[in-house]
């Protein structure tokens, strides 16, 4: 049985369906990308999987099944156990998810101590530093003593990934993890996410609008448009065999070296 099954879900905000009839399955260690323009419903889908729909959004039809259990019937308590340990999420700007008036270290140790009730403060801190360093942040101790605004975009994103990966979740949801970053930092972060799968066997769902990034990372690519699945398949199909007009439009838009020149 697949690790995650999303069966024909419809998601509505204030009774207006935003995403309709969306299905996907994900096996352990698989990477799947959701691609599409802003407003196509990509983020809504992964937020639904994480039980974090904003603004009164609800899954009105269909079911989301994670390891054989329906996530839609989870109680608050069960969600709390699941989030951060079995499923975790990385946001577009991890700096914005952290409290700007608290040091990274304080937020991170609190995060660890919420998940592990009996861990001593010092141990939590060591664990956090270890995790930051594993995510290739030089001098984790320094990072722990910094405020989010003192870190660069790439560093903040690494802190976000480190936090998300602390308990080696089975499923990682990443919402435009590299869109706010420089190309060089983007390449580093993408590579790092690929290593998560190699090292921990994490399955990943990535939301992105860049088909280049999606094609590089994923086993399976889903193209979304206006809340519906427009096209899907593996990289080979997407890049070379798809006959979908919209997929072609997105592919054309990726700037490519030696590609179209307008001048």
């Amino acid at each position, binding site marked *: 049985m697949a690790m995650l099954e999303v069966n024909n879900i419809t998601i509505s905000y204030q009774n207006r369906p935003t995403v309709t009839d969306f299905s996907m399955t994900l096996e352990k260690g698989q990477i799947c990308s959701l691609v599409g*323009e802003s407003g196509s419903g990509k983020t809504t889908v992964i937020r639904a999987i994480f039980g974090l729909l904003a603004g009164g959004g609800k899954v009105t039809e269909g079911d989301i099944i994670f390891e054989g259990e329906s996530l839609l019937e989870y109680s608050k308590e069960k969600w709390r156990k699941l989030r951060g340990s079995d499923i975790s999420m990385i946001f577009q700007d991890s700096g914005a998810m952290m409290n700007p008036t608290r040091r990274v270290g304080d937020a991170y140790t609190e995060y660890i101590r919420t998940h592990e009730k009996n861990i001593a403060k010092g141990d939590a801190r060591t664990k956090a530093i270890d995790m930051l360093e594993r995510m290739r942040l030089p001098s984790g101790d320094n990072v722990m003593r910094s405020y989010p605004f003192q870190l660069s975009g790439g560093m903040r994103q690494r802190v976000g990934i480190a936090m998300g990966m602390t308990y080696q979740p089975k499923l990682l949801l990443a919402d435009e993890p590299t869109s706010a970053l420089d190309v060089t930092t983007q390449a580093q972060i993408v590579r790092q996410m690929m290593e998560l799968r190699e090292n921990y066997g994490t399955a990943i769902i990535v939301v992105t609008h860049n088909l280049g990034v999606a094609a590089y990372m994923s086993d399976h690519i889903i193209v979304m448009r206006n809340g519906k699945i427009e096209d899907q398949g593996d*990289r080979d199909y997407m890049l070379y065999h798809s006959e979908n007009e919209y997929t072609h439009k997105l592919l054309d838009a990726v700037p490519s*070296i030696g590609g179209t*020149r307008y001048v």
Partner: protein
Amino acid sequence: MFDEKDLILEAKHVTRRFPAAKGKVLTANNDVNLKFYKGKTLGLVGESGCGKSTFMRFLVSLDKPSEGEILYKGEDITKLKGEKLRQHRQNIQMVFQDPAQSFNPKMKIRDVICEPLLNFKRIKPSEKDKVARELLEMVELPGELADRYMHNMSGGQRQRVAIARALALEPEMIVMDEATSALDVSVQKTIIELITKLQREKNITIGFICHDLGLIQSFAHQVAVMYLGNIVEVMPGEDIGENCKHPYSKALLASVFDIKMDFTKKIESIDSEIPSPLDVPPGCPFCDRCDQCMEICKQERPILKEIGPGHEVACHLYAGKEA
């Protein structure tokens, strides 16, 4: 390849230092020399914090360099003051990265676009409607949008409004600071198409800041690569790709996700973070991240040398003739 008589703006030995804590000095731009030609695009590429924006702000007189001069048609604009400076601002306009933050949210699109025209008394308030409509149509937006506010528009539409506002005064040159990096790739493409079309029609000079070499190669005539405040390579736009020489330019190139790339290979990227501009190494600024670093690189800072027509590199690996 560029005609010297088309030279419209030239930056000469521009250096900018900022005072930093504990008596240190942050050198944001170090001896930058660049030339902008009529109707051509110069792309300035580099990572965040390398000094791209600092430099471009000099061009629009939002800041002044500590040393060096910026010649607009032979006149040093860093020395302009008062009314003269105000009048000069009509010649060079700017488009910012995030129009949602650079415009007054309480102003209607019509007022946003017409404000510069009114400031310079180019139109009467009664003409606003007509002019706003024309300008919106120029950037391929329906004229009815003039009644809206910024927050009612999508990112792509906003950026078009920003372009319309910048072009309202019919400047000789516009500076675009990462004008597309907040947009979806598909919207980005349409904006680039619009910019290039307008450039052809109006023969505008463009200074474009960007960090994506894949994007910049699609429309720049000249590309300058900046690293920690230093220009490390200047090349003709079509040379990106096979012909770029500096190890840093190559590293930038290698980190572009291209749909035509070889997916079996691992994506390459420079692993380390960009060093703090407070302690730039004495030799080549790139030496501690470069995998071809030699002994000389640590001691002597390389200078730009010409290695081909319109192509200059600052690297000890390439011994060209002195530029």
